[in-house]
């Protein structure tokens, strides 16, 4: 079969490689080879499944996490221990908390590893009643419920919450917001960052043909995509199309809602991609030894930063996550109002230097074609996760989505791998 893969992030590369392995003729169509919106998340590690599939070795680097308050107090978080501005009681409770989060992560990852549901439930039961129920509670809770149950230190709680809230439009009081922490924890992003990034995947795919061009539209006839057209007027026909773009821009913008089944069109129209995360490019900093850094104070101030977004306004006092290795700063929640001044003030407080570039959600939508400027192709909330995130996997009979808008909702390549495996499955007779 001739397969066209649209996009150039880890998910697209993983799908393309896996499909080629199955003997398909694969062509990649991409506007920029830089990886689209995922280029703003260089810290995202590849998933272990992708690493083992393509023999990439160790893909995660443990760097730890640091929380810094506006008064320059700090906490250092590592899997084994926490230090800095933390109480003895919190230090004692840390290992038990890590255990619950690790177990919950194992179950969450298990749900995407293609294991049978029964096996996942079996593994869950093995934890024992108490631990199993703790694991079950995690994703349903709000961050404040989860963290208040475990810890007393404001900065510690805020650091964990702020790391969960990066790229999300929720507050720490929102029920289900602990699920955001679980997702990052399960990917190793709370304490680690990518050691090998999508470049490693791309280097394996050097012989795959790449056509440059932004996809402008898909030509659909009788529920099948016949070809796609790029902005340069190039028309590419194929048997199968796989796109790592987000569901809304692909289906609403490029396919057209009238070409979709009613159920699918409805799902797409409800898909939540409203982002309030701004990204600033700064100089990388050696101050924190390559760690991920959260600038935040306490849970209440995180919630207060979220409140105005509900009425369409921006945070008065935004909080942020800083990837000190790449120099990217993720600021919550900013869309327009005096964004540059607010980011500048934040950078001055923490001596981060000059802002080289500030991208607001609408800039990211413009530059990368990501609907709503969303970093993950749609909110990673409970109601857009797991099976509810898989509903848009195959919107048309020969169009598959393989980006972060499906699967686990990240740029780890796993969604691409899952997609390719789904396509490679023998058709049931």
């Amino acid at each position, binding site marked *: 079969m001739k397969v066209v893969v649209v996009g150039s992030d880890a998910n697209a590369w993983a799908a393309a490689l896996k499909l080629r392995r199955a003997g398909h003729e694969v062509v990649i169509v991409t506007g920029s080879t830089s990886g689209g919106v995922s280029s703003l998340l260089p810290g995202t590690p590849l998933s272990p499944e992708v690493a083992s599939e393509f023999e990439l070795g160790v893909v995660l680097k443990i760097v730890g996490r640091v929380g810094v308050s506006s008064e320059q107090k700090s906490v250092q978080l590592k899997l084994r221990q926490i230090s800095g501005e933390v109480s003895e009681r919190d230090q004692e409770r840390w290992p038990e908390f890590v255990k619950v989060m690790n177990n919950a992560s194992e179950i969450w990852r298990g749900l995407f590893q293609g294991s049978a549901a029964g096996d996942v439930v079996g593994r*869950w*039961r093995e934890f*024992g*009643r*108490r631990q*199993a*129920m703790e694991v*079950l*509670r995690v994703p*349903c*809770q709000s961050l404040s*419920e989860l963290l208040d*149950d475990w810890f007393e230190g404001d900065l510690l709680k805020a650091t964990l919450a702020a790391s969960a809230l990066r790229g999300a439009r*929720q507050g720490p*009081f*929102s*029920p*289900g*917001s602990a699920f955001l922490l679980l997702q990052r924890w399960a990917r190793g992003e709370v304490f680690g960052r990518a050691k090998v990034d999508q470049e490693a995947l791309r280097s394996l795919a050097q012989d795959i043909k790449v056509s440059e061009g932004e996809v402008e539209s898909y030509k659909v006839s009788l529920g099948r995509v016949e070809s796609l057209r790029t902005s340069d007027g190039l028309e590419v026909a194929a048997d199968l199309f796989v796109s790592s773009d987000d569901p809304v821009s692909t289906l609403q913008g490029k396919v057209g809602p009238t070409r979709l089944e009613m*159920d699918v069109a409805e799902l797409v129209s*409800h898909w*939540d991609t409203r982002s309030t995360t701004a990204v600033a490019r700064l100089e990388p900093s050696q101050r924190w030894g390559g760690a991920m850094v959260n600038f935040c104070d306490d849970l*209440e101030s995180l*919630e*207060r930063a979220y*409140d105005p977004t*509900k*009425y369409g306004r921006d945070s008065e006092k935004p909080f942020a996550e800083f990837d000190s290795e790449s120099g990217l700063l993720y600021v919550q929640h900013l869309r327009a109002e005096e964004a540059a001044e607010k980011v500048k003030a934040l950078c001055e407080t923490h001596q981060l230097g000059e802002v080289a570039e500030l991208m607001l959600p609408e800039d990211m939508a413009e530059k990368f074609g990501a609907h709503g400027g969303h970093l993950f192709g749609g909110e990673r*909330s*409970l*109601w857009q996760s797991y*099976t*509810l995130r898989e*509903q848009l996997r195959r919107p048309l009979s020969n169009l598959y989505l393989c980006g972060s808008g499906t699967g686990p909702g990240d740029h780890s390549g796993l969604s691409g791998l899952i997609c390719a495996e789904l396509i490679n499955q023998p058709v049931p007779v």
Partner: protein
Amino acid sequence: MQKYDAIVVGGGHNGLVNAAYLGKAGLKVALLERRPVVGGATITEEIHPGFKYLTGSYLISLLRPQVIRELELPKHGLEILPLESTVAPLPDGNYFADWPDHDMTRLEIERFSRKDAENYDEFNATMRRIIFGVKPIMDMIPPDPTSLAPHDLAQMARVRGTLDRMERRDFHTLCRLMTMSAADFLDEWFETAPLKAIKSTSGIIGTFLGVRSPGTGYVLLHHYLGELNGVPRAWGFAKGGTGGLSQSIARSARAHGVDIFEGMPVEQILIENGRAVGVATQKGDEFRADRVISAAHAHPTFLKMVDSKHLPEDYLADINRWRTRGPSCKVNLALDGLPDFPAIPKSKRALLRGSIEIAPSVDYLEQAYDDAKYGGWSKRPFMDALMPSLLDPGMAPPGKHVMSLFVQYADADLKGGWTDQKKAEFLDVVVDTLSEHSPDLKEKILHKHIMTPDDLEKIFGLTGGHIFHGELTLPQLFFMRPSPQWANYRTPIQGLWMCGSSCHPGGCITGAPGRNAALEIIAEAKEQVTI
């Protein structure tokens, strides 16, 4: 002193239902109520002479029809008057009304949006299918999902079976509804702002969350699970107030031989050799029984009445982290005549016989939550007002009226605590806000009375003033309510049971925890006799 088969601690509606069922099954039951009259928060009180105030609950819908039937409540004096409508006066001088009757509401929506009126058909049909699918779960004994014991596995299979019967599409809608916010869910269906506001209020009743908080979709669903005389999601008013309902259950219980002791506060649940054997009252009496059933909130039950040395550490930890910070107040006004709501036209005055909701927009409701959530109260609160004297003239002297107001939000953990001055201040906020919609209200007020979360705790024993005995959020539902493994109305102490709203299926006047617990107790008692 006489030995009983069972002692029920607390005479709220669930305690009464539980006692009545046990009495009906032939057990010798004593029910001990702390206050001078049974009813708990299901009560009518004449605080201002001649005016009957609803200091707790005020409407009925979720009461399980089995409870009405099996306890023969109509025979014991229960009379439920249907509530005809809900109306929201709007700031622009318009109004929006909602009826239990689908077609009437549809016509009303058509005044605002044709498209919404059409969507309303589909919305109602979807909600009806979902409700039909999940309602059986209300009457189920929650299993322990980690257990491989045959009865737990069988019960899990029953739950799965119930959900499997739903269409896949509806099941997905259910999953989303359980996790998303009421406002977001309604946004997917409708464009009419007042319609979304009035419907979204079902998602925040009694819950310390905003209409835009994820999880309020479930609370909305919870309030859709009711029915009245076979009409789904219809609401009604008990003649004589909700006290009329609790009195009818008490009469049914007495008819089944239950001894009801009023003004008898329980000091301690007696535990001997790890088994509950009775209670000691504050007056120094002891009642002995084979089993003790607490209808009280989980906090007073396990943190006051039971010595913590009898409880496993895990269980105690679960009770301690139970979320029960309430956001609700109850206000009652004695009125010298009917107040005017200019937004409601003279020809539609019949709407005053229903609920009057001060919920002009989703933003208004969300702001009310944001004002209160950091230890404060809403500057302009959400209110559900009702004039019971229009439904039952016996509630106020002739020509006068009484108004019951359910008000949100006021934080149970108010910064600086609830003092008399703060109480009076918030009462003024409530009256001022309502006066914006009814200019002549203030001059008609003869007497006003407020129950803050602090009062609800002190008077009804609801910790944090939480009207549902604890938030109805996912980590506190079904097999987690109030603690995993102990959601089947049993507790870690042998012979000690729970039957209040701290158990599945949670708050509102449902009678379901009381009934479910009674059925479990009766089944176990029978087993013990045969052995």
